């Protein structure tokens, strides 16, 4: 697979403040990549660096095969960007806004492209209206159309559903899904972790520096391993101890009437656990796999980093 986006120890500082530190990521062609992180984590700064809007302080980045800082105009020709704020000209109509940007990208078939995306996003009938009168969702759609007019291979979407009502957010998400099927490479930043889980092939958790990067499933596996929940009719203290004695069990804990067991290879080992519980008099109602959400993973990574930083701060003070 071809890497459409590559960063190597990419860093950006504003004076004494470090926004992004040693970020190294690779995004393959056709992948939807989610950049997650709290406010001020450096997500927008990363997108701005990759869009050649701001220069990295150190490190390297390549976008569509072009090096950031050397081929900035070529990079901008090959990317489409949806900025945090739609940034449309309020006094111009939706159509005029798009015509203007189509002109800047020097597109050959301007009217056809404008019509294609206005129709695709359900705005064709309102093309002659000033965008000042548009709802936030409609503005976001016009901004999406603007990002796509020149058919870029790479799309940067900075919080595309932020502030939208559920219906508008769903439309935007579905549209991103369509773009994914077209094989475009998409880098998306979001606070909506469910959205990231649904849309992204891989995610990176960023908090100034990269905390983790992988598929949501692999991150779940790395952080939590696999867990099975046994819903029991009645809890007994001995059940957890019984299962903890199996060599493939890492953890076993009773929570109310539920027995949560962390283990390797549940597909092979679950029958033995069920047998052991039944032999010890347990009445099992349901058995299911415990799936930690991306939110759990995200919060755990960010909390771990906070703890590490506090520990490092304490160590420095002690020294």
């Amino acid at each position, binding site marked *: 697979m071809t890497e459409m986006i590559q960063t190597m120890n990419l860093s950006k500082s504003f004076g004494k403040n470090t926004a992004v530190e040693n970020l190294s990521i690779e995004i393959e062609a056709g992948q939807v990549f989610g950049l997650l992180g709290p406010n001020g984590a450096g997500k927008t700064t990363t997108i701005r660096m990759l869009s050649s*809007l*701001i220069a990295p302080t150190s490190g390297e980045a390549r976008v569509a095969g072009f090096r950031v800082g050397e081929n900035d105009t070529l990079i901008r020709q090959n990317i489409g960007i949806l900025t945090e*704020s739609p*940034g449309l*000209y309020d*006094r*111009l109509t939706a159509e005029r806004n798009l015509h203007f940007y189509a*002109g800047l990208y*020097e597109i050959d078939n301007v009217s056809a492209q404008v019509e294609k995306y206005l129709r695709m996003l359900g705005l064709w009938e309102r093309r002659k209206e000033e965008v000042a009168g548009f709802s936030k969702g409609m503005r976001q759609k016009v901004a999406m159309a603007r990002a796509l007019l020149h058919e870029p291979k790479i799309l940067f979407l900075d919080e595309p559903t932020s502030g939208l009502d559920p219906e508008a957010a769903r439309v935007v998400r579905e549209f991103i899904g369509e773009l994914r099927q077209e094989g475009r490479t998409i880098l998306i930043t979001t606070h909506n972790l469910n959205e990231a889980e649904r849309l992204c092939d891989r995610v990176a958790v960023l908090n100034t520096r990269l905390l983790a990067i992988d598929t949501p499933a692999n991150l779940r596996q790395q952080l939590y391993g696999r867990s099975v929940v046994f819903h029991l009719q009645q809890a007994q203290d001995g059940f957890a101890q019984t299962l903890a004695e199996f060599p493939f069990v890492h953890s076993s804990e009773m929570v109310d009437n539920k027995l949560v067991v962390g283990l390797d290879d549940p597909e092979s080992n679950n029958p033995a656990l069920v047998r052991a519980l039944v032999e010890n008099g347990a009445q099992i109602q349901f058995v299911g796999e415990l799936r930690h959400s991306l939110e759990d993973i995200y919060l755990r990574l960010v909390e771990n980093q906070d703890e590490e930083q506090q520990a490092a701060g304490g160590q420095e003070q002690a020294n």
Partner: protein
Amino acid sequence: MNKIKEIIRKEWSEVFKNKIVFVAVAFLPLLFTAIPLFILNGIERSGDMGGAFGETSGIPSDFAAVCSGLSGLDCAQFFIVSQFIMLFLMLPVIIPVTIASYSIVGEKTTRTLEPLLATPITTIELIAGKALAAVIPALVATWGAFLIFSGGSYLITHSSAISEILLSPMWLMAIFLLGPLLSTAAVCAAMMVSSRVNDPRMAEQLSALVIIPIVVLFMGQSFGMIQITQTVIIWFTLILMCIDAALLYFATRLFERETILTRWK
């Protein structure tokens, strides 16, 4: 070049929907044309002002020389018309400043600058597009006003001397050479201010300061301290060419994409 044209078209479709800007572009040239025509008409009607100029005492020596062979009335009108040259040099400064001062800071406040800078447009194309979008209407308005003034002057005075002065190299150089240079200088200064400030009102107030040198010249001329002659116009033109080149260079250099984007909140 296409990108520059796109910027110009976009600026105009946005700017001329703003009534204040439209009034500034349309009303000011009409006012600056009406005032001198009204004064000329007053002189023509009174007629006896010519007596004061008949002796050619108390008027600058340059005019005294030109006035030889002219009637007192013609000389008075000639002198008055010459004073108005500065009005027609104020127009290409005042009009574009209104547009240019808002050009960058306006993009910041409406948050349209980031998507704009993310396109393949170069800084020079952006600056050129925005500058031309401000300069062209100013020049069209100035030249239109000059045309109306020239025609109106002839209709009021029926004096070939007035027509001659308005079509003299000094006037033509002032209107068609010095005007565009002044306009470019004003626009560059306004855009430098616009790209450095975060408040449109501050941009307008600071940019308005570029009018001061022209007002000083106008006052100096009115009080007889400065005489605008062909030589003066040539010198101003040459100096302004250098100033414009420097201002264009600095306007482009000062437009730091990263600083403008990241300092704006």
